[in-house]
């Protein structure tokens, strides 16, 4: 089932959903833009191995590449889902662990990679699994709990903050 809305409309719905989830969304026109944005906002950030591969400029700006836990961690998002404000993450165990242990997780999502519905998002996830991914997941906002007196509290085990950086093609 094809999504009926144009990508810009999808990103604006996505942005509204991200707000509700308590995450942040930023835009940049290129990988170089992402690198300088991160250098300014997330000093001494670490990035996953796949970031260095997909966004070499970001990899070069990183303090560290690889799995050891960092306060600021950068990883690629494979695609975004407008309906839910989710980003798909598909990292090997060591980098995935670092993503969950970080205080602040940054996900870089290519601007063209957005789908409208959860159905389409799950179809793409199915494709990742068919291609051998062991543990792809959808992230929808920062870690949260309401287990104590139903008080919504952010950042219990996973990242306390989630920023999605939409990276343009230029």
């Amino acid at each position: 089932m094809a999504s009926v809305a144009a990508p810009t409309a999808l990103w604006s719905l996505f942005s509204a959903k991200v707000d509700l989830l308590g995450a942040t969304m930023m835009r940049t026109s290129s990988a170089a833009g992402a690198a300088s944005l991160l250098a300014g906002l997330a000093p001494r950030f670490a990035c996953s191995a796949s970031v260095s591969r997909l966004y070499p400029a970001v990899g070069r700006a990183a303090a560290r590449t690889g799995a050891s836990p960092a306060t600021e961690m950068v990883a690629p998002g494979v695609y975004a889902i407008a309906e839910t404000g989710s980003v798909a993450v598909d990292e090997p165990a060591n980098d995935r662990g670092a993503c969950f242990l970080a205080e602040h997780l940054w996900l870089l999502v290519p601007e063209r990679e957005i789908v409208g519905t959860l159905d389409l998002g799950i179809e793409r996830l199915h494709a990742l699994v068919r291609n051998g991914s062991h543990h792809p997941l959808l992230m929808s906002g920062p870690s949260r709990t309401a287990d104590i007196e139903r008080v919504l509290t952010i950042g219990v085990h996973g990242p306390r903050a989630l920023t999605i950086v939409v990276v343009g093609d230029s």
Partner: protein
Amino acid sequence: MIRPFVERYRTALADRRLPRNLLAFQRAWRLTRDAAFQRLSVEAPSLGARGASFEAARSRLSAAKDSVLADPAAARAAFISAATGAGTIVHEARTADDARAAILDVLRDRKVKLLAKGKSMVAEEIFLNHHLENAQIRVVETDLGEWIIQLAHETPSHMVMPAIHKSRQQIATLFEEEAHRSVPHDDVQAQVNFARAELRRVFLSADAGMIGANALIAETGTIMLITNEGNGDLVSTLPKVLIVIAGWEKIVPTFADAAGQIRLLARSGTGQEITTYSSFITGPEPGCELHLVLVDNGRSDMWSDPDARSALRCIRCAACADVCPPYQVVGGHVFGYVYSGAIGLVNTPFHHGIEAGMEPQALCVSCNACAPVCPVGIPLPELILNARARVVERYGLPWYKRAAFAVWSRPRIFDAAARFASLVQLPVVAADGFLRLPLPESLAWRSVPALARHPARDYAMGRTFEGDSTGPWAHSNARGLTVAYFLQCVADRAAPEQIDAAVRVLRACGVRVVVPEGQHCCGLPALDAGDHATARRMARQTIDALEASNADYVVTGAASCGIAIAHDFARLFRDEPAWAERAERLARRTLDLLTFVDRVADPPVLEALQRPPVTYHSFCQSTNILGISALGPRLLRRAGVPLADLPEMEVCCGFGGGASVDYPEVSRGIVTRKLDNVAATGAAILCTDNPGCALHLKGAAHARGMDLTVRHVAEVLADALNAVSPPLG
């Protein structure tokens, strides 16, 4: 491990904070859950989503679950084959013992000292932690709620929020005992930070991780895991050994089905549109091991039982607890085992034996609130009544119900007894119409209304009352129709004025009313008590009496009994086709009073009266089975009666089921919520559409000294219409 029911019940009643907190929770849940589904209906269609409303999503997921239940062996084989192909080691466990042994074997072989655990209801079901600790393996729960109850040596009291019964102060004390340092008692964020720091050490040092599964996707052998905290991903990512434990009923055929489950689960569980992390685990990563323990533990018995099979659709969202009035009063521990709320009353006997479910099943007030919110359409109220019938078949009725039904089910003996009681009560009948009885404290919260000196049957039965030809509603669409009126035993004996009013309202609509001879009780009390043999006997009497009339409709002012006749009789006779057919024929022309007047008569709207507003409580089954909660207010407005909206109008008053007899404290808690809501409206008159509820509310309002008149809605309508027909007597 599980304390006796009586002890659990007393502990819950002694906790005065618990019902307050659960009331706030249930109210908040209802708002956020409804809003989340509302947004889905508004936003999803334009995106082209599948299952773009609660109803559509529910029917898709139910169908997916049913396709697995059509042939579970094939579904298991398909899932196992795909999972094994991906490198997962699958252990099939028929019993709780088998499951524990399989897990212990894996952990011992790998010399695991510390197991970091994500939330799993199945692990709770088989008391896994207890057994592993006996085997010298340290288990740490990492879901915050589960960790709290582990520290407190308790079981979860809610499937989604295991520690909902605990206050932040109690939690701080538990944390201090664990860490031997001080933790702020009022600062939830600080408590969460404490848990983050403490459990992080566990994530990093555990030798193995364990998680449950929200779904098992057969097409790829994938485990779907949904969490908000991120602990599930940490325990399934950091240690090299991962064990997943799940009941086989979690299998869904495809990823598309899993998407449907995500849409329903977060909204139904917490009112979120999506949970923070939705992970899809397929086979072990390089250098790691992935084990899946697929548990039966009574599920095949549930599958074999037509009265329980559909309960295997459950996705553990706990919506049925979140709307359950008794749950609000006593909380989840009283239900006993891990599955609380309505689903627990159905599945506990299969996982833990019929004795385990015997006492809790009577907590259900049969309000049916759980059915409309269940995201997989499990007919929970019906399954609970069947579970109750099993208990009665095995253990018989309690003596007081046996004695009551021995009289109640025999029309002539009942009639003599009721008339005798109406005489012997005279010395204790006070001027206000209530009995002055020395009731024990547990019962004194509800005054007992006196029986009428003359039941309605004395002047109505066997008679015909012609429809009015004048009056504001006399030219309604029902003009000229004939209605056979079913009196209903409670109104007949204790509130004949309700019957009088109902007949006057019908006549005011130009309807001819006949009151068939030979009618007695429809058998609903016996059905509610699980005594199906007695219920069938009484249903046959009722069918005999009512089908003799050639009236266009059978109508009753007792919505509960109208529902019994129109919805329960056919089910009661599912093994007697001839009676089932008669029951269905009768059901087709049986309506409650409000439906008949609103939909058949469809009377005109009258000018609003200048008088103080009344407030209206919709009988819970009218709301949840008939879907007519709007009819009472609408008819009152048509008759010109000013109305004050009742908050939580659709929540039960606590009269129904057996709770008001078996667990009067529960009934009291529920009616207190109702009357607090009534007090908030400022109305001096409360009306409702079911005689039992009216008497229950009247008695409870009287006992607490409220200045409130409780009436059947027909009485208010008849007054407003100033129905010209003379009283029946």
